[in-house]
């Protein structure tokens, strides 16, 4: 299994079309860098993206440098995955 330790899901609230476009650029530049769980659509909808641990500093710096406000939706994906796997194993038992 791919290990997602330290990967985070960031929630970004874009204020306008220009900021949405900056988020879309993230995928164009390097698709493996971010995985959009909720893609950039319109300013009223939040954008959720999984960022690998190794890319977190650069992606967060990108967001900050363009004035994009974000919060951490999931702090460590692997923690949730471990819980999910444990729950499945427990159910089987």
């Amino acid at each position, binding site marked *: 299994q791919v290990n997602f330790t330290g990967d985070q899901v960031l929630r970004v609230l874009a204020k306008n079309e220009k900021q949405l476009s900056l988020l879309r650029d993230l995928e164009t530049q390097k*698709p493996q860098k971010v995985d959009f769980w909720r893609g950039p659509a319109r300013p009223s909808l939040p954008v959720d993206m999984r960022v690998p641990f190794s890319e977190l500093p650069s992606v967060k710096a990108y967001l900050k440098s363009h004035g994009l406000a974000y919060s951490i939706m999931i702090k460590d994906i692997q923690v949730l995955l471990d819980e999910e796997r444990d729950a499945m194993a427990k159910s089987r038992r």
Partner: protein
Amino acid sequence: LERSTNSFSYSSYHTLDEIYSWIDNFVAEHSNLVSKIHIGKSFENRSILVLKFSTGGPNRPAIWIDTGIHSREWITHATGIWISQKIVNAYGKDHVLKRILNTMDIFIEIVTNPDGFAFTHSMNRLWRKNKSSQPGIFCIGVDLNRNWKAGFGGNGSNKNPCSETYRGPAPESEPEVAAIVDFITGHGNFKAMISIHSYSQMVMYPYGHSLEPVPNHEELFNLAKDAVKALNKVHGIQYIFGSISTTLYSASGISVDWAYDSGIKYAFSFELRDTGQYGFLLPASQIVPTAEETWMALQTIMKHTLNHPY
């Protein structure tokens, strides 16, 4: 693997083998109402299965429900299983469902993307696409909800094979999509199609590829509103509704746009729980409540389809 559906946990997530085993047991235990149809093979040669709920009669008007076209959206497979069980339990007790099944057939494809789903269990829990590959192209997988012949290649789909929304080399290039298209087209009498995704809590209707309202926009708007209202009554969960392009985002080559353009007037796309606390990693404790409320929304659409023949 379980030999009976009695010991199957509906409040837990399951592997592909467990689900396929459950399907076999389920069909055997309810052979008067349910049958299993093999509609094709996936890219990696796995069976693509559809459950048919029918009380008899040739080529009746039909309702299509699919879950799990995006493999990481585990809550949708689990909801499809719970709903299938609900149909057999409620038939005979629920007056509305009885009326529906005495006139129409219901088809449910629980694992629409079996290769991707197997991969989420074996290798990468967050895999979305199918597992097809092309010679000379490094990245794997096509987004099965961008591969339909409906505005194929337009806004909200991607030509880059490494993108999560890669549309594929051509419309219906993917065996998982082609199998459904062949089946629905061959049947020729589908009246409703509901494609179930997660997450965001939305009920939507065509179009995704265009901002243009569909001819019966008002009817679909009101029906989506009723469905959301029925859903909300179960556990108080709020869903939003509207056309796909105005509610969520532009998305081209999607299944419900194809269904609508193919003459299936009642075409809906659901986005189940939640709105972002867990996203695709919704805890199993939310499976049953999610399925319960989704069932009420589905029933609303099925009832409307029954009462508005065309």
